[in-house]
């Protein structure tokens, strides 16, 4: 950088091109946010007397409800005030202002106001919305963890969608077979999950083998796996499962309510009475974060992804790490697939992943290749999906296709770096030549 200037604010004629661009975009951002605030006040003036009621199940679904009632206008005012404050602060502080953190306040306020305005007086059960958010977020974040594992080690993993499908199909079929043979639901479920993970492992190994040994372009290999997965699962569904429905009736996984924690009002029914997958996801998120950033294993993995040549010089076996991470990623993705068929839908349906594998990739980028960030991103996507269900259930007159498009459009916005450009592992996708 240039000679360190002791002042906080950059002196304009000493700034480089990048600094000038940063200052300009900061100013634009501040102005836009402040202007949005003014719009909010405008919206507030017309809606002061429209009700906005949000209800939460207190302890059990269908039991007592706890409601928060305000008016839509109030929500707009809140959003407007927040926008004004944040926008002006951004203008004043310049590029140094951590505006991304302010989104945590801004976005929920705006969403609350917009949703309330759309609902136009109807009561919205937020517990269901949050529970739906988590349900959507589980497979997406598991897929994102798989993506993080592989990409951090230097392998591009486009095939998460395919692994979802294969895992879902394998889980459904094997669990059904196990159920028919043994009659034990718990065992059947275990068999289903393990088969799904095994299938994911095999696919991950195939991808690693193609990409490392044969230096096949990893994107092409990923696309191939996705096509193959769609083809073979559709084929199996139509040819085998259509006629032999006993092969597609796995036992369903019940939700597990954690003893004391699920009694916590409002939060309990949402967070602590989910499927085992939810708990695993949360636990794995913490575990993966710890492993990636606090252990030697994680350091070696990240080195393989950032600068494999340097890692190789120090004696790290980059090839082996990449194989292993792809295999692990495959297992996790297969697990996520089993969630789709065993917990979410109860059986295997054609194309049931509906693009969640690609949304998982977006969550990886959105979350800056960090498990916790990816989980947060998955929550955002899940929330938009849940809101769409809520609005359509309550009969709000918004075309469903528009709402259906939201996760995809949000993904594009995220990937295009509107929320800021994040840098991925530098060597991702480049084959490594162990010299």
């Amino acid at each position, binding site marked *: 950088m240039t000679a360190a200037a002791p002042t906080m604010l950059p002196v304009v004629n000493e700034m480089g091109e990048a600094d000038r661009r940063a200052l300009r975009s900061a100013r634009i951002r501040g102005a836009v946010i402040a202007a949005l605030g003014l719009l909010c006040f405008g919206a507030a003036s017309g809606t002061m007397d429209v009700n906005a009621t949000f209800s939460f199940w207190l302890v059990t679904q269908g039991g007592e409800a706890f409601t928060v009632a305000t008016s839509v206008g109030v929500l707009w005012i809140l959003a407007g005030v927040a926008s004004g404050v944040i926008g002006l602060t951004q203008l004043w502080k310049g590029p140094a202002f951590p505006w991304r953190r302010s989104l945590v306040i801004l976005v929920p306020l705006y969403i609350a106001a917009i949703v309330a305005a759309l609902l136009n007086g109807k009561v919205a059960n937020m517990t269901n919305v949050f529970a739906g958010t988590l349900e959507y977020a589980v497979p997406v974040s598991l897929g994102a963890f798989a993506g993080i594992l592989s990409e951090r080690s230097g392998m591009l993993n486009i095939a998460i969608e395919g692994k979802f499908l294969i895992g879902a199909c394998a889980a459904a079929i094997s669990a059904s077979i196990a159920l028919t043979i043994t009659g034990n639901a718990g065992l059947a479920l275990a068999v289903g999950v393990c088969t799904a993970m095994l299938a994911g492992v095999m696919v991950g190994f195939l991808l690693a083998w193609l990409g490392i040994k044969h230096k096949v372009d990893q994107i092409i290999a990923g696309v191939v796996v996705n096509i193959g997965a769609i083809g073979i699962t559709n*084929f199996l569904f139509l040819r085998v499962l259509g006629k032999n429905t006993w092969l597609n009736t796995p036992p369903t996984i019940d939700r597990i309510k954690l003893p004391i924690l699920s009694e916590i009002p409002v939060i309990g029914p949402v967070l602590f009475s989910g499927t085992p997958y939810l708990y695993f996801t949360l636990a794995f998120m913490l575990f993966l974060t710890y492993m990636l950033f606090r252990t030697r294993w994680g350091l070696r993995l990240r080195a393989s992804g950032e600068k494999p040549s340097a890692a190789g010089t120090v004696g790290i076996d980059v090839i082996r790490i990449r194989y292993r991470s792809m295999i692990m990623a495959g297992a996790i993705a297969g697990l996520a697939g089993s969630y789709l068929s065993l917990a979410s839908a109860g059986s295997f349906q054609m194309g049931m992943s509906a693009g969640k594998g690609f949304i998982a990739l977006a969550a990886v980028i959105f979350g800056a290749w960090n498990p916790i960030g990816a989980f947060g991103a998955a929550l955002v996507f899940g929330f938009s999906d849940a809101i769409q269900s809520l609005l359509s259930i309550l009969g709000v007159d918004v075309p469903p*296709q528009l709402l259906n498009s939201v996760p*995809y459009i949000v993904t594009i916005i995220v*990937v295009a770096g509107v929320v800021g450009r994040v840098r991925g592992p530098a060597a991702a996708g480049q084959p490594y030549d162990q010299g």
Partner: protein
Amino acid sequence: MKRLRRIIRPAIVPALAVLSAFLVGSVFMFITDIENLKSFPQDPTGTIVAGVFNIGEAYYALIIGAFGDPSKIFAAIGSNDPKVIAAAIRPITETLVAATPLIFTGLAVAIAFRSGVFNIGVEGQFIMGAMGATVAVLALRDLPSPVLLVAAIGLGTLTGAAWGFIPGFLKARTGAHEVITTIMLNYVAAQLVLFGLRSDFLRQPGNDAPISKVLSTIVRVPLIFDLPAIRLHYGFIIALIVAVLVSWFIFKTTKGFELRAAGFNLHAARYAGMSAGGSIILAMAISGGLAGLGGSFEVLGTAGQMTNDLSAGFGFNAIALALLAGNRPMGIVIAALLFGALRTGGGLMQVKTGIPLDLLVFIQALVIMFVAAPVLVRSIYRMNPRPLDEGSPV
């Protein structure tokens, strides 16, 4: 002799790939033939023989469905009855009809590959092009037919080009990975089509299904043969012409050279003074335009109206095509004919033996895998589609 070798050499690997893929597919057919396998414990050899026989029956249906029934062809020779002739040539014309959109979409993918961009969004660009053509026809229906046809196709192409422009622009300006943006835009396009088809302007009156008003009564791409139930239209001929044009553009023009240079090495191209961002955007726009062109012809020539399952997986087929053909336009035509044959024949196969079409999708994936593995070992890794063989690539 050398000339012959030049043509055959690049075809060996793809041919072997197709063969190997079919072998694996046959195994799958065998092991999922559950009714047959049930008799395995009692009569193993009989089961295997029966299984092989079933597979043979399936492939026979595939070939007949794609190219024609010999008995019907015999009857047609020398006959003057249009119905008999139609029955004889129906399979092969259906194959050509199925191949037409594949040629367009395959070219779209190939030109993007050659420029170093992965256009996975061909499916979305295809249906957006079809939508554009549909809207044009319904909005401008009072124009004389030839003008309306050209205008509709033109608008469809532009719509597809715009849909391809978006991810290209995003990649050039923000570095957004085009694989994700194009795939997302596919889903958005599908939703847009659904939305449009439910609107009163487009929807067929009195029907809740997402189908548009019938377009073929207003205008349609002219048919080549005036025989009953023969659908082959001039879109096929146009597709062949476009393939030649694309080949000329890529290999014989400066702009095409710039695109290929960007595909080989973006940094070197930029160093040589070519605009890297411009190449990406141009490639994606052309690619989208080609896909949109295909969509326009599909809705105006083959389908006759816009439905929400118009494309039915063309996108991924196109990628398979382009890879199989080594991103060569002429190879794409051949590969498109092959895939068209598979689709048409597969339909008959499904009817006769109950084996779902999706097996062929799986076989296609295997084909790509077999092609991609040894070939790409030879080439420089990353975005290079194929090293220049000895002589001109055709």
